[in-house]
């Protein structure tokens, strides 16, 4: 029908069944990433301050805005 090898990817590649818990886990990971990158204990208050200082250099290095 067509010369493009990409024209019918669905024929060749079956779908992966993605369970609901996969998305729950991804959301949890996103929340953890947010906590890692967050600004100055907006969510965790005091504990956020500790995490903020401990992960300070990683946040700068990853290019997230910081103080």
């Amino acid at each position: 029908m067509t010369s493009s090898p990409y024209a019918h990817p669905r024929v060749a590649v079956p779908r992966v069944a993605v369970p609901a818990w996969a998305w729950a886990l991804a959301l949890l990971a996103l929340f953890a990433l947010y906590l890692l990158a967050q600004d100055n204990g907006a969510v965790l208050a005091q504990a956020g301050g500790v995490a903020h200082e401990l992960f300070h250099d990683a946040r700068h290095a990853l290019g997230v805005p910081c103080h």
Partner: protein
Amino acid sequence: MPLTHRTVDRLGGTATAPPFPALLGRLLLGGVVAGVLSGIWQLLVTERAISPALALEEARGTGTVEDSGEMFSRTTQLVGGFVGALVAAVGLAIVLAAVYAALRHRLPGRTDGSRLIVLTVIGFAVIALLPAVAIPANPPAVGDPDTIGTRTAIYGAVLAGGIVIAALVAAVVGALRRRGTDHTAVAAAGTAVGVALLAVLLLVLPGTPDTIPADVPADVVWNFRLASLGQLAILWATLGLAGGWFVDRLTASPARG
């Protein structure tokens, strides 16, 4: 082409879709490798670019609490920084696993390795390179604490805009392919739509409200930005290459998986 497809599928082991838990496990392994490599880069390169900025803050005497080492020693912060890089990589790998599993059948490529590299290149472009252009990373001693809310909002908007643009380009490319459009024309159309939308995004969004203080030398900022972008490149490249290698071992020989 169907014959080629079938042959390729057998070689690439893509005839049956891998179960998600196995996929997640392999990508987590890739995430750990990516975290360790980017953490080593951080200790060897990025920290060296951060040091002069911390010295500036100290000389200024106006360093914020987190940089003066009042709560943690610098050594502890170096370890924390490495752990932070590792946690970030593993977190990204978990999100990547769900996104890859959902998009796997739509990504171009003959093996899981090549499909994953496509996805991680898009991820690097949208989540690392685009913010580095729109609102570049800064070392300590540069950011104004009063504008952190604005800067975080701009950063979030860049990420959201980039993800929307990637989805729109994928939708255009997918629609053209289904219509059987010539491969070169599809590539040209996808590129044109992507470039136009990116230009609009960069023009519409405001830049950082901060000005770099006069006492911060340009090379301190430049070296840090290069180190930061290099670290993100290592992180995403390893996620794609190591993660893809692990997944290919899984799909090529499920018996050993």
